[in-house]
């Protein structure tokens, strides 16, 4: 178990509990009462801490190393039926972006998502979930195939951004993302996008145009990471907490601002605390949304999708205000 800085009180209590348990074991003295009391106290502390999380703490949670990544979700939701498909048919196979077919309770679904590595070596291979243009083009190829065979699409978003490398620029990172935005708008099949960790900027949006865009409770979605925002606007790396608040990047803020369609609740203590529970929640949410979306015609879905994104933004018309 890895504890974040603000989880220190929970860690201390848990360690105390471990000690108590081992003492009870060795001395054969019945301590079940104090153990139960301590467990209740831990629960209470956890509820207290997790009901008052700051924006920055949620950013920390979204990056928790024990948090499940895209492939874990796909595997659980598809009951291990996932068949990964590779390559963009042009330059290569991007390991930071995964995709393929899976079966969800008898329904074939095209799964796509950024994948972070689970150990040091894999983190490098998967570029920490930062996709290259060929990753976005692979995603688009798979989405087009899903459209051709009339299969719904579910994307899992978890990226610190699109990869800002030399080759990425040579191969048109901007064009690749832009093309996805345009093409995803017009997909005839239902598209559900779920932010499961970090939703950073164009790199996230590149697979984020959907009929339903949902965020897990402890994730973030914005135009820039709080760290980079701090360095650009405050010209220092030390304002990340302030930047996190200012950006209004949490699921609650995004929902209040009407920029996402819903929040998926996480288990107490965050998704990493109970993988099975978050997998089950996500699966039932996907099934629920698909049920609704499948009742609409492709044209209805496309029109609603375009209308939804077209309505985003806050502007004032000086002329109209004057006439009032």
């Amino acid at each position, binding site marked *: 178990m890895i504890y974040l800085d603000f989880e220190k009180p929970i860690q201390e209590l848990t360690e105390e509990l471990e000690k108590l348990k081992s003492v009870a074991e060795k001395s054969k003295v019945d301590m079940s009462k104090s153990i139960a009391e301590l467990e209740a106290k831990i629960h209470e502390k956890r509820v207290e801490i997790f009901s008052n999380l700051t924006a920055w703490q949620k950013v920390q949670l979204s990056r928790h190393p024990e948090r499940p990544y895209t492939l874990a979700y796909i595997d659980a939701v598809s009951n291990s039926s996932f068949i990964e498909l590779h390559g963009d048919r042009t330059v290569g196979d991007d390991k930071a972006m995964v995709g393929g077919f899976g079966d969800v309770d008898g329904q074939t679904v095209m799964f796509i998502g950024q994948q972070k590595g689970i150990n040091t070596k894999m983190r490098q291979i998967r570029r920490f979930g930062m996709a290259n243009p060929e990753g976005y083009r692979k995603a688009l190829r798979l989405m087009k195939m899903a459209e051709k065979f009339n299969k719904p699409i579910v994307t899992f978003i978890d990226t610190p951004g*699109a*990869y*800002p*490398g*030399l080759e*990425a*620029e*040579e*191969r*048109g*990172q*901007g*064009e690749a*993302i*832009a*093309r996805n*935005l*345009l*093409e995803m*708008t*017009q997909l005839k099949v239902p598209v559900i996008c779920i932010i499961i960790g970090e939703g950073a*900027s*164009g790199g996230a*949006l*590149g697979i*984020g*145009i959907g009929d339903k865009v949902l965020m897990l409770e402890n994730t973030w*979605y*914005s*135009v*820039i990471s709080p760290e980079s*925002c701090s360095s*650009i*606007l*405050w010209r220092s790396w030390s304002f990340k907490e302030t*930047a996190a608040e*200012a*950006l*209004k*990047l949490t699921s609650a803020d*995004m929902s209040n*601002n009407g*920029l996402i369609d819903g929040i998926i609740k996480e288990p107490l203590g965050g998704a990493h605390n109970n993988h099975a529970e978050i997998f089950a929640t996500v699966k039932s949410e996907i099934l629920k949304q698909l049920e609704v979306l499948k009742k609409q015609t492709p044209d209805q879905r496309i029109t609603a*999708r*375009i209308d939804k*994104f*077209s309505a*985003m*933004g*806050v*502007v*004032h*018309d*000086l*002329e*109209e205000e004057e006439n009032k």
Partner: protein
Amino acid sequence: MGWFKRLKEGITTTTTEKRETPEGLWYKCPSCKKIHTAQEHKANQHVCLNCGYHERIGSAEYFEIIFDDNNFTELHENLVSGDPLDFTDTKKYTDRLTDTIKKSGLKDALRSAYGKVNGNDLVVCCMDFGFIGGSMGSVVGEKISRSIDFCLKNKTPLLIISKSGGARMMEAAFSLMQMAKTSAKLSLMDKAGIPYISLCTDPTTGGVTASYAMLGDLNISEPGALIGFAGPRVVKETIGKDLPKGFQTAEFVLEHGFLDKIITRTELKAKLSTLLKMFKN
């Protein structure tokens, strides 16, 4: 005798007091350092007469270059940005907006207008770098969106002139969603078969590159313009090496297949009208 001993002080003018050539009379090219009269320079559409360096210009200049007799009707000119996030960094966003509006005489980083180009109808959306680094916020997105509605209704081709540092951070996710919004709207142009030309000028980066700037039926650019997704500094930090010469210039982007053509500003109007005719006939 002051042969060996300095009796007079040397140059005493401090750097701040140093005067460049008086403004408004002469133009000194930052690239080749040659000097021309401002009049000549303007007549050559702000392109250096000696080396062809394209000076950064704003929407007023582009409209004058493109539209016949500088005749155009501005669309949605009264849109100004809100402050949906109540954003404050080192300065309140609303103050920043008010100051910039006063200083630049612009209302936001993009102006839209329709008029004729050698007799051909065209809607032009042009970004202004002078407004918070040409950053894309709600107003930029909304103006493009409404201009596309105009194009769809009147079957008029669209030209977007990009010049931007990317998304406007003070509007955070709202600004991010302008990428989705403009691209969604462009998909309607795509379906309707109305030409959209994207002109990338120096600089075109970030969220603008990753949305409308790269989605033209034709992507064109001015010579030497910086065009990229990640800024050069970020790429340099990522690879930990110096960047190759000419990296992310228009010529580099053309060579890698993401631009149709590089067109000098002096030829822009003629080429545009030829292209518009070819789409039509």
